[in-house]
């Protein structure tokens, strides 16, 4: 049977197993929406209230399932509004396919109504993008898009579809390819066995090792293998912001997050280590601090599926290009086959030293009777949810506190914007997570600044009855900006004070949700419990917190990992 482009689009999504698509309609995608409507039930379309929200929701869906997230937006402003979400997905390696409508082919390049060159605009922030120029290429292009997005180092792929390809004037037989081959794209999965042997030897010879693991562990599904490796060797493990949950945070071998707001013990262990084993992490500047002072005595092993990540910022001694899960499986097998153990005496000394650093108790906080402390709210939420919630975060101080105080024991539970640092990410991401996990406890930890950047999505939550718990740490400031201004700009708080805040309780109620303002520390637990227990409603918990609280510890810009500000 011959199908229109719009029908081919929908059938291709079905063939890919897409069950949820996030989007916002407009002129150039009307034919696609006409067909999507007919596919309801098989493919649920979720109507966001802004294209940025749609794309972040697709990210949330993808980040909590490791499936490819899908979004659809119209041409012109629909496409440009999606760009922030696309860039966000690019920096955090989120598997995602974004469909944009385009003006009819005959009008491309004419400055037509709602025309932008979205291929050109997104070129630097996508894994790849395609303009479909012929209906014959539509199905195979969609196949390629999903394949590229979900394999290798995942990332966003954009498919731009001109309106006249979808209009049904031209129909062709639908034949969705089973396989796709792209001659220039063959990600290496298996690590080089020689390199794995070298790594095994280095692991066994090390006296002060540390496993420094990132988002790649979560993305590859290699958390179990990482735990096996760490336990086998009894090595300490630190996670990057993106890697949280890749190793159980309540495990005694976990020394906390590293980097700018990481723990003292994690950063000191990195600094003093003789062997840094980077696994699916990329030596980001927030992790390394001053690169000149980074891990001065360490040999470095780096496992990553992206060869370009290796030796980009830091010279690596033993590179292993491959899928983290596969490489860790092989590495564990190699170590087991050798049956050797690292120097136990040295390792004991190393652990003694780490435990000494731990005594600084760098994450301690005090909750008095007067003002709510942000850390306390997160800590309580972690306790009340047994560490099992899906926690989405916006960007700023609350994000760092969430990362420090919510102890993730499982991967795919911590959903945040790490690379791009996109304020406004949290709420729409939480929608995607809640839709992927309808019965799960899902929180959006946010602040009075971030939440206002995609606040319109409260309407989407109403429409689809998403019982997200918004935990807003309202300090009346753009807290992270204020903190930097306090430290480095002599307390000149330029534009970081959020005046004219709305009444968030009334705002939540206006959208049909439950809003509660909490001022008294004694009420924190009760409010959290109420929100957690109610599985039907969205709660907007507006916690009025200490306005001038800072995130500690901190590595100031230009400093080394051993030069932390503790309190």
């Amino acid at each position, binding site marked *: 049977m011959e199908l229109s482009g719009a029908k081919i689009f929908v059938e291709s999504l079905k063939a890919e197993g897409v069950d949820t698509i996030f989007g916002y309609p407009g002129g150039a995608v009307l034919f696609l929406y006409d067909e999507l409507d007919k596919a309801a039930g098989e493919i649920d379309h979720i109507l966001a209230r802004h294209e940025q929200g749609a794309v972040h929701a697709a990210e949330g869906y993808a980040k909590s399932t490791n499936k490819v997230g899908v979004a659809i937006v119209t041409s012109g402003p629909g496409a440009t509004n999606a760009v922030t979400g696309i860039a966000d997905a690019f920096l955090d390696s989120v598997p995602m396919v974004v469909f944009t409508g385009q003006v009819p082919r005959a009008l491309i390049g004419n400055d037509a109504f709602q025309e932008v060159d979205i291929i050109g605009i997104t*070129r630097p922030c996508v894994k790849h993008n395609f303009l479909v120029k012929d209906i014959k290429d539509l199905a195979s292009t969609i196949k390629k898009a999903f394949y590229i997005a979900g394999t290798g180092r995942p990332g966003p792929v954009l498919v731009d579809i001109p309106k006249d390809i979808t209009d049904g004037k031209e129909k062709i037989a639908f034949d969705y390819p089973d396989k796709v081959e*792209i*001659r*220039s794209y063959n990600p290496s999965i298996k690590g080089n066995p020689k390199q794995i042997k070298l790594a095994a030897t280095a692991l066994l010879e090390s006296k002060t090792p540390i496993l420094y693991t990132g988002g790649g562990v979560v993305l590859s599904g290699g958390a179990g293998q990482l735990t096996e490796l760490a336990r086998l060797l009894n090595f300490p493990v630190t996670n990057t912001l993106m890697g949280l949950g890749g190793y159980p945070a309540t495990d005694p071998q976990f020394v906390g997050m590293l980097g700018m707001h990481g723990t003292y013990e994690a950063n000191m262990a990195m600094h003093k280590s003789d062997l840094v084993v980077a696994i699916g992490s990329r030596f980001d500047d927030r992790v390394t601090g001053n690169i000149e002072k980074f891990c001065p005595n360490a040999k470095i092993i780096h496992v990553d599926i992206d060869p370009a990540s290796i*030796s980009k910022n830091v010279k690596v001694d033993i590179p292993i290009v491959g899928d983290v899960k596969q490489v860790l499986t092989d590495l564990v097998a190699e170590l087991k086959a050798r049956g050797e153990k690292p120097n136990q005496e040295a390792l004991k000394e190393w652990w003694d030293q780490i435990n000494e650093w731990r005594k600084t108790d760098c994450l301690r906080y005090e909750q008095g009777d007067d003002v709510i402390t942000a850390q306390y709210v997160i800590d309580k939420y972690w306790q009340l949810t047994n560490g099992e919630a899906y926690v989405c975060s916006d960007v700023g101080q609350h994000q760092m506190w969430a990362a420090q105080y919510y102890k993730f024991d499982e991967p795919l539970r911590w959903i945040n914007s790490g690379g791009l640092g996109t304020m406004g990410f949290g709420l729409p991401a939480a929608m995607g997570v809640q839709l992927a996990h309808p019965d799960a406890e899902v929180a959006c930890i946010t602040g009075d600044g971030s939440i206002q950047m995609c606040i319109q999505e409260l309407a989407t939550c109403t429409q689809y009855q998403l019982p997200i718990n918004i935990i807003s740490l309202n300090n009346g400031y753009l807290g992270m900006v204020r903190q930097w201004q306090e430290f480095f700009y002599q307390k000149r708080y330029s534009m970081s004070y959020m005046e004219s805040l709305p009444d968030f309780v009334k705002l939540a109620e206006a959208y049909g949700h439950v809003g509660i303002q909490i001022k008294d520390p004694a009420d924190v637990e009760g409010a959290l419990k109420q929100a957690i227990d109610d599985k039907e409603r969205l709660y907007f918990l507006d916690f009025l917190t200490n306005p001038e609280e800072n995130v500690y510890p901190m590595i100031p810009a230009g400093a080394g990992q051993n030069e932390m500000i503790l309190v």
Partner: protein
Amino acid sequence: MENEFGALSRVVGLFSARGYNIESLSVAPTDDDSLSRMTLVTRGSEQVIEQILKQLNKLIDVVKVTDLSDFKYIEREMMLIKLEAKQVESMSTIKQIADVFRGKVIDLSNKTFTIEISGKGEKLDAFIEAMSDQIILEVVRSGCIGIARGNVSLKV
């Protein structure tokens, strides 16, 4: 790289986005019309060059990348240069210099010469220098193209 629209801009965009310098660039289809071959000249430390190679390899449209400077290689560039003699007497000088550089006069008018010359970039620079006493009206250079010597070949 794939002989497709947009492939060139992905490469050029990568260089500008990551702050790498392009000294010259030349691209055209090959005997296999699904492929274009690009020769790009850039400079950087060993680490930068390694990163450029990796980043280029990451582009889906790039099929294969080779650093020619890892091999013995031949490079060529073509130049078309249009000159006007300062005096009538220097017309024969122009012809003589062109001969020394194995340049060919490919067009003439009552006042101007157009000369075609090819070779390494330095040779073309030297030719321009040698013509500096004349009036140089136009210089068009193709950008460098290169190929490895001997049995080494860049094949897909």
